[in-house]
């Protein structure tokens, strides 16, 4: 059995689990953040319904804006905040391995 990489097999074995652990941690963090934002948005929706029924119109716009900001944060987490890989950066660009 031959290994066709420059690194020693022992190096690869040492790095791989560490990378996977890191990716898994990022995925868990993404999930936790998304769930927390969803809970906050649920609270905002309940407050919006309360304000509408009580005719407190001045508080409606700030609540809708807050919900919109939560949605934008959710979008940014789903779209851009990703675990890094050997090929892609966290923002989706192809990694330049010859750099530096």
């Amino acid at each position: 059995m031959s290994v066709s990489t420059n690194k020693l097999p022992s190096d690869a074995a040492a790095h791989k689990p560490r990378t996977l652990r890191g990716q898994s941690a990022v995925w868990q963090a993404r999930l936790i953040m998304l769930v927390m934002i969803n809970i906050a948005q649920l609270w905002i929706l309940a407050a919006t319904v309360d304000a509408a029924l009580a005719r407190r119109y001045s508080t409606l716009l700030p609540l809708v804006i807050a919900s919109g900001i939560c949605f934008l944060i959710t979008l940014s987490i789903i779209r851009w905040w990703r675990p890094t890989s050997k090929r892609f950066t966290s923002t989706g660009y192809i990694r330049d391995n010859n750099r530096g």
Partner: protein
Amino acid sequence: MSSKLDEAIKAVLSDERDVRAPTEPYQKDFPYDRGDEAQVTRREFCNFLGLTSAALFVGAAGFAGKAVIDSRESPTFQPAQIAGADGMAPNTALSFHYPTAKDSAILIRTVDGSYHAYAQQCTHLSCPVYYAREHQRLECPCHEGAFDAATGNVLYGPPPRPLYVIELEVRGGQVWAKGRKPGNTT
């Protein structure tokens, strides 16, 4: 008895793949593993949370928008006779609708014989208020708020403002509703 129950539980909890073993030719050609289908990946769950976030935002915006649009509608107040008001005994109440069929209101004849009418929506969360004869006041059953029957002012509880007052006029024994205005906060 208990052994039969245990067997029944085991039968129910047993692996369903035995039950769903492919028997038809098409099932062999397209094998379907129910367990694998039930798995949700982290990516799918993240996307689901994103959709939930979008739905919550749309819900909040829609609810707020509808409330603002409703608030800008100014109904016209045409005088309307309140049917059945002339025969009311003191310390009783009558439900009616004013100024439109969607706006429920309550007419009260107090112990002294005078008439008072209010919009039936509580100013806290729009629950319908009712007249409590034993206490001679309007009460909200949702969060235990109470309003004065003669003025519509808040007696206690979470309501922040008095009830909307419906202006009345008695013409020849008939009670007429003439208009609606916010309650007196002083």
